[in-house]
């Protein structure tokens, strides 16, 4: 069953909480226009790790040589890549 956008946003937020060591409840709700890099949510290792985690859970691998990583900074773009839904 393909993951829906809301589920992927939840996974991203849970991952950022674990990666940053912050309690999940201390993070704001993530809007689809959130810039994950600008907010310092992820570093390069965290980003690569997040792609792997999302790839495992959605069954959709994402190779960074096929995309502009800077585009994936925006949560909505990342979500659409893994959900298969068109960007909003």
């Amino acid at each position, binding site marked *: 069953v393909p993951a829906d956008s809301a589920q992927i946003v939840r996974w991203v937020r849970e*991952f950022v909480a*674990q*990666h*940053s*060591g*912050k309690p999940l409840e201390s993070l704001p709700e993530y809007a689809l226009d959130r810039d994950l*890099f600008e907010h310092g949510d992820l*570093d*390069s*290792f*965290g*980003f*690569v*790790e997040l*792609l*792997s*985690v999302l790839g495992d859970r959605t069954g959709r691998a994402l*190779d*960074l*040589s*096929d995309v502009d*990583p*800077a585009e994936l*900074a925006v949560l909505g773009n990342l979500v659409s890549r893994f959900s298969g839904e068109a960007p909003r």
Partner: protein
Amino acid sequence: LNFVIAGEGFPAAKVLETVTAAPEARVVGVFTDLSQPRRLKSLAEAAGAGLYDARSLATPAAADMLARLEPDWLLNANSTVVIDRAVLAVPSAGCLNLHPGLLPRYAGLHTHQWAIRNGDSEFGATIHFIAPELDAGDVVSTVRFPIKPSDTGLSLFQRCIDAGVSAMSAAVQDLLAGKELPRTPQDLSYRRIYRHRDALDARIDWTMPARAVVDFVRAGNYEPFQSPSYTAELDAPRGDSSAPKVLVAAAAAAGGGGGAGAIGEWRDTGPAVTCGDGTAVVLAKIVWNGRKMTRDDWDSYCSLLPARLLRGKAERGR
């Protein structure tokens, strides 16, 4: 089987998950950077494994402490700590390392960036037994994959880590199944060790052929993150200490004019610069003073140079 896991981030976390998924395996300790709030620590705590400072593995004093954990295997994934030989002798079955590079030709650090810089067409990751000498132990398995023309330092790093983690997980599955791991000694006559300091010079050598300049630029591209080694730089202009950073360069269809480093006209995405083989590269995504350069910015930058010439690595006094 008792396992000790050493390392950082996603690779070590993935190895930990592989081991903890097997009922016949037990993680008795995790050595990591305790100052970093990473997922690995949460996973280790959930597995009931003790957490230890990875840096301690570099000292012989860690051997006694490790012995008390009674490990059969030590699995090292993505740690730059050079483990002391007394520590290596403790696990009863051995110590394995995930090296994100092909051995013996690419030992050391930032090897994926060097593979692009060297013009290689393939790269890979290696699982090997840990010997006291860095990245010199017997090879268990090697995973190879092509380097694409579109690869950057970041994208090749991603593929190395993904491939290496899969290979380490496969080795762990074999151990848990009671299989003996293959051991192929490295031919150390091919050995080359890349050190961190070897990879820090960000200046472009404009005497190189255009293809090599393109490779140098893309190997240093970790956009939107900071490269662990270098990001290609242009000359710092007069009166301004900030050197523009170049993230993308493409070999131009048409040749350049003048000698190596000569600045040509502005093309679709950015300026053309002549390389050592007489052909040009077109630069794109040049970041100067925190923002992407426009054509006007480029003209301003050029007006601060002594001539319409980029000296790059030939520049003295930097």
